[in-house]
């Protein structure tokens, strides 16, 4: 190796090449599962069950998708979109209001409430799922899509994230609005809301993706097959016909592609939002 030629950023050329090679190898490793899902979904029965590696579908077929849609796959897709979208809307709405109050209002019980919220965020959701299920029965919404949506909205991460964003609003602007005689709601919608919009965008994507992928809650709450979501249905199909990998990959592709597309399209807001949530975490 060459003697260390240190530039201003402090890395030698040898190290940079080494790092680049490792990064590319790792990137391939991380891309592989998704590649394998997508290509696998187009392989025919012979290639799926081949005893040698088939790196690419040589005789691509949509047969796997045809068999997938013999099941109510559109309904499953609709269910998961509906759950994720409703959870997203309700979470953004309630969290924006609450986050603003926590960040900017000096009210009695603020410190206690904030402490409870932080503690609840560390609690594993799965621990409370048994009482949660009974609550759903009590409210007569057990085994409906709402049984997944409502607990998701209750999760306090959104409030925490919106508080972080609302704290960046200068107090002077709020004062000015008050002096101008704007009421509380008017202040919120005409002053606060436009300023925390990027935060709401981040929270929206974050909630959508996380709800889509919250397998545990779907598994426990949705028991009849017309209420299944696509991820839940794939998991259940895998249990029933564990060797029909073509069908399962078609399902996995159908569940993964929309959410990956959403993620790539809104990547900027998403990464911003995650980073923001951690600033004072």
């Amino acid at each position: 190796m060459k003697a260390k030629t240190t530039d201003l950023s402090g890395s030698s050329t040898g190290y940079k090449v080494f790092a680049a090679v490792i990064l590319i190898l790792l990137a391939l490793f991380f891309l592989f599962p998704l590649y394998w899902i997508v290509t696998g979904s187009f392989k025919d029965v012979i290639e799926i069950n081949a005893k040698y590696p088939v790196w690419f579908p040589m005789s691509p077929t949509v047969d796997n998708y045809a068999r997938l849609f013999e099941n109510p796959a559109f309904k499953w897709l609709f269910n998961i979109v509906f759950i994720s979208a409703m959870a997203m809307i309700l979470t953004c709405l309630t969290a924006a209001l609450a986050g603003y109050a926590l960040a900017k209002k000096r009210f009695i019980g603020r410190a206690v409430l904030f402490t409870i919220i932080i503690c609840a965020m560390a609690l594993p959701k799965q621990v409370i799922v048994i009482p949660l299920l009974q609550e759903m029965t009590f409210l007569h919404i057990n085994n409906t899509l709402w049984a997944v949506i409502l607990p998701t909205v209750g999760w306090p991460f959104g409030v925490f994230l919106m508080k972080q964003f609302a704290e960046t609003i200068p107090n002077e602007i709020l004062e000015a609005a008050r002096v101008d005689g704007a009421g509380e709601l008017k202040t919120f919608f005409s002053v606060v809301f436009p300023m925390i919009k990027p935060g709401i965008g981040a929270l929206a994507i974050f909630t959508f993706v996380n709800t889509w992928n919250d397998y545990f809650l779907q598994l426990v709450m949705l028991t009849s097959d017309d209420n299944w979501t696509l991820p839940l249905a794939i998991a259940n199909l895998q249990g029933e016909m564990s060797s029909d990998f073509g069908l399962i990959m078609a399902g996995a592709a159908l569940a993964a592609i929309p959410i990956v597309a959403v993620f790539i399209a809104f990547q900027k807001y998403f990464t911003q939002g995650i980073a923001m949530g951690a600033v004072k975490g």
Partner: protein
Amino acid sequence: MAQTSAAAPAQGKPKKQKQSPYSGMSKALIRRETISAYCFLIPSLIFFVTFVVVPMFICVFYSFTEYGLGGVKGFAGLENYVKLFQDPIFHKGFLNTVLIVVVAVPTVTAFSLWVSSAIYKMHAIPRSFFRCVFYLPVVTGSVAITVVWKWILDPYNGILNQVAGTSGFDWLGNQKTAIWFIILILFTTSIGQPIVLYVAALGNVDQSLIEAAQVDGATKLQVFWKIKWPQIMPTTLYVLVITTINSFQCFALIQLLTKGGPMNSTMTIMYQVYDTAYRLNDLGYANAIGVILAIIIAIFSAIQFKVVKTD
């Protein structure tokens, strides 16, 4: 954890906060602020209290009862907790959970920090590309990722055995290898978020300090440990805590790949909660395990705060 976080907003305006959060406010103003604040909070609080706080208390209550298929049969006192300490499956689950956390958390943290250090100074396009690639398994979803790994690891049709020439070997059916594949897959779905966080944090490190140190002849390692490391400490702490919580909660992987087997070699506390509740229908006991799991997570988080803070 709570204390640090609650104290954080105070840093913004130390003068006001040092006396009292309400200093300079009349009683009438405080009352008005409180009323309007709760109006803003009410929609969120309804969901939070109904679907998080109340179930939390019910969960603790049930953990002291004998609760099977027919409903609560009676008060059990500490029986469920005593049973827990004598339950060999819980012991196995506890050890496996600790193993997963102790292996996955430092690996994920160190690895994501290395990747972030390597990519954060790159041009925006390759940086976004790498960040995106490492986040992809998170977005793809635990179910899709798990089912494709099941295929990759399949004894006869799986690509791993075909490439490695170990046809017929059942990685997930082997007591020694199963848990390591669970950890590997958990790892691939865990590093996305820490990388996003570290890239942001490293980008915010005060550049003038780094340049000053380099002018003084500091090596790359010195710059890292003396300047960058302290400044990204809050991020490290956050990464440790979220990765710990994630590792404790790893569920889909185990439910879809091994169901805790073979011979409980991949049993975790989390999976035992589910298994006890939904297969064995012993709800009182499942709630007790859940309560203990929550306490263990709290202890782990507290230890991390202590260790990192005193460093």
